[in-house]
């Protein structure tokens, strides 16, 4: 694994869109070639080197390439978009779409991430040490085929609309979640270590949600059926097991309806 270090050396007037800061785009390139990769500020196309110093070197393949992004990236969007392999470490807070549509590899954000991180994710691992904004691991607008795979770990709290239309993969939230978790979900798992505000599993067809804390406003469409013992994220505990959303359609398997499952720590 070889490492490229990018350091943001001046702040943009607007925001930078850097969907080519990925191991895929960097692999096999020299620092000069990487510095020539185009990024956008509004309608202007700019070489990456105008805003970032480029040090180190990229590996021959994405898998062999690690990118470290230093400097204050609060006005930088779309790092790691559609990446398939390799590693990205972002040392600061970062703006929207981090790890959007990622298929493989690892992204580690050491600060907070704004909205739409892990949107449309298919695989790989996205770790945010701090808080994340809205639409974590959600589907893009209008898309019914949401998150398909991979893992998202948020250390802190998240905003609303987590995992909308989730179909697969896992999202672990260390803190609290605002309204709407796994809305329209048809698979996958969301684990909230803290509290959930409400609308947990609304219009959900299939999939699982675990809440370690409380749900301030539980939906009427979820019905408690039992209390079970579960090992979740290394924690062994009793959970109240609900099925739902009973207001939503449900497919049948061997004549029996398949529900979404909500587990709330008892």
């Amino acid at each position: 694994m070889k490492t490229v270090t990018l350091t943001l050396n001046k702040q943009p007037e607007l925001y930078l869109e850097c969907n080519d800061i990925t191991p895929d785009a960097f692999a096999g390139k020299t620092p000069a070639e990487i510095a020539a990769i185009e990024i956008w500020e509004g309608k202007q196309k700019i070489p990456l080197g105008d805003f970032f110093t480029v040090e180190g070197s990229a590996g021959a393949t994405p898998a062999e390439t690690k990118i470290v992004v230093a400097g204050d990236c609060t006005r930088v969007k779309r790092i790691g978009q559609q990446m398939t392999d390799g590693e990205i470490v972002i040392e600061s807070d970062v703006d929207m779409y981090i790890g959007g549509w990622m298929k493989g590899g690892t992204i580690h954000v050491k600060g907070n991430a704004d909205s739409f991180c892990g949107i449309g994710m298919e695989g790989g691992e996205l770790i945010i040490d701090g808080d994340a904004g809205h639409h974590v691991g959600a589907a893009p607008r209008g898309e019914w085929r949401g998150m398909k795979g991979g893992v998202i770990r948020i250390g802190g709290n998240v905003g609303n609309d987590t995992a909308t239309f989730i179909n697969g993969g896992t999202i672990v939230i260390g803190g609290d979640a605002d309204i709407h978790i796994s809305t329209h979900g048809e698979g996958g798992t969301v684990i909230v270590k803290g509290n959930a505000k409400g609308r947990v599993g609304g219009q959900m067809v299939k999939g699982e949600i675990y809440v370690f804390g409380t749900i301030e406003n539980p939906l009427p469409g979820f019905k408690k059926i039992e209390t079970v013992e579960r090992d979740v994220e290394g924690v062994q505990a009793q959970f109240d097991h609900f099925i739902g959303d009973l207001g939503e359609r449900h497919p049948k398997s061997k004549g029996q309806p398949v529900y979404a499952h909500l587990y709330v720590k008892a």
Partner: protein
Amino acid sequence: MPKKIENVGCPYCGVCCDDLVVTVSDDGRKVLEVENACAIGNEIFQHASSEGRISLPRLRQPDGTYKDISYDEAVDYAARVLIKAKKPLIFGFGSTNCEGMAAAAKVAEKAGAVLDNCASICHGSSFLAIFDNGYPSCTLGETKNRADVIVYWGSNPAHAHPRHMSRYSIFPRGFFTGKGHKGRKIIVIDPRYTDTARVADIYVQVKQGQDYDLFNAFRTVIRGEDIPDEVAGVKKEQILQVAEILKKARFGTIFYGMGLCHSDGRNHNVDIAISMTRDLNDFTKWTIMAMRGHYNIAGPGVVWAWTTGYPYCIDMSKKDRAYMNPGETSSVDLAMRDEVDAFFNVGTDAGAHFPIEAVKHLKKHPWITIDPNICMASEISDLHIPVGIVGVEVPGIVYRMDNVPIQYRQVLNPPDGVISDEELFERIHQRISEIEAEEGITQTSAAAAGTQTSFVGE
């Protein structure tokens, strides 16, 4: 001789009454009388011929005052602002005709601007729900001719859409609804006991911000499952009673408004309303409709969809392609995040309707207002360009709240020299081309990001 003009469309709300009779003075300069309109519609016509209309663009001077300039100068100024800005925002279109919107889209594409309309701060959440869940709807005449159950949810037409109930929903006698009001059940669901609720057969008082939970309860009982004794402040008995009425209707329409779009969850409230409408169609016929605000605020969504594929929040900064993601490319978010560097306020008043922080950010950059009237936005602008009032001085097509196109007429002449939105945007487009040619600016080509999606020649 005063002239009577019949079948005039009203430039006020999304009801788009097209039965107005307007009497104008001999010289075509003054409205003398407006028949059939509500008080607000009447006022719009009266205002057109009031004193104090401005008839020339006004440019802000270093001392803070406005100075009259020619349209040519204003067009040149606007074109240069658009060329210079890295990401201009063109917002508004609450009171523009479709021809003007089409021309504005052309300018936005050329300038690499973000193009957005008032839905962004109004029924945009309806669009988000439509993207995710569809829109089982109908034209308003269907409701008038067939509906025996009407639901107003989070909307108060008695105030916001004065003739909605009499023209389309509660009172009219239609083909299969000869008994009019007597043959219909009216259900109003709202946290407030509104004037619309006063005419309801059933009023359901939902707890503020818990509409989603109540929809969820309705959907659950419609599927025959049980619910808790009280949901969102509403007793189970009443939920069961209303659900039964919904299921037994012959034809129903849910009209919803800002109560869903602008309370917690926003698009999800509309989304689950659509889900409930889908469910009900397994039993009988149900439709749903957004109570759109301005008379042609449905217009930009329609026109820009055929232009770019997106109804609002359209980021064309890449010029070769458009992108939309409300939450990022929506006007208020762009302004709050300080993500644009020029602002065109068109046929609306962002000065009055945007959060103060957003206005402060926008004010750091060039701000151009295009509007017939003096408003808060025009008073803080760098440039104010007056245009004719659509539906009074400028004819054209507008889209009613049910997306039915209505052809509007001209009843007055605009003040001397004042041009239409369409002409203004066409001239700005022309001027941008001229300046780019003079200065040898070439179109930037887009980076080859993403996937080629043209089927042709694969």
